[in-house]
């Protein structure tokens, strides 16, 4: 299954949708590129929608943390939307789930900035 990353705008909020695997040599770099492009393009409100993520590995988690830091350092906010239970578990065991603002509803996520 191919990893795809799509980006869309809801008002001034950039929503980055990830599909498939966010793993080493695959989706990890695509995710970084999409988020960095959004931040470089001036976006300050970012939502990463993970509804269709099937697997994430430590590289994907590392990239996600890196993207969060990049966004924060540039004055942007990065939030997570629709974490599948297994993806949420992977973030929980490494105590990262508390780092991120996590939403289950897009409207609420958009309104939260």
């Amino acid at each position, binding site marked *: 299954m191919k990893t795809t990353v799509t980006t869309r705008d809801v008002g001034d909020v950039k929503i980055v949708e990830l599909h498939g695997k966010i*793993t*080493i*040599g*695959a989706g990890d770099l695509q995710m970084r590129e999409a988020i960095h492009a959004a931040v470089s393009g001036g976006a300050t409100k970012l939502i990463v929608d993970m509804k269709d993520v099937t*697997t994430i*590995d*430590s*590289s994907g*988690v*590392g*990239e996600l*943390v*890196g993207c*969060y*830091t990049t966004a924060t350092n540039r004055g942007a906010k990065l939030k997570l939307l629709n974490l599948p*239970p*297994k993806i949420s*578990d*992977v973030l*929980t*065991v*490494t*105590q*990262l789930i508390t*780092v991120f603002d996590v939403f289950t509803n897009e409207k609420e996520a958009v309104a939260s900035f």
Partner: protein
Amino acid sequence: MTESSAPSPGPIVLWLSSRYENLELGQAVLEYVCRLRGIENDAEHWIGVALREALANAIKHGNRQDPSRRVMLSLGGSANDLEIVVGDEGEGFETAAVADPLAPENQMKTSGRGIFYMKTFMDDVTFSRDERGGTVLTMRKHIGSDQKKGVQTR
């Protein structure tokens, strides 16, 4: 033999070239073994996460992504114990020197969580060296009604 147990093909051993694409091959073989042994999907998922971390480390840190260096993958064990061995042709490493990803100063690091995930999702993870100095990683997962580890499903 009167005890009935899930059929096991005996250990399956593969030699993989050091390319990340081969993670998919490892995962596919794991799926095959799990079907054969009646290992349920949730357990398979977490074993797969650990397997991918193990193979990724062998490819990246062990063999430094040199496609001419090989990664050995073996899937075996007994009826109620899945054993995965991953070997590489690298220089090995000092396991004691690996940083704790849960330490506050490491929380926002972009790497260093792979071995922790393996240890979290498998019952037993041990590292040793082969005669040439490469890393040999052995992971075990107990298979059966009393799956003692893994993440609690909600």
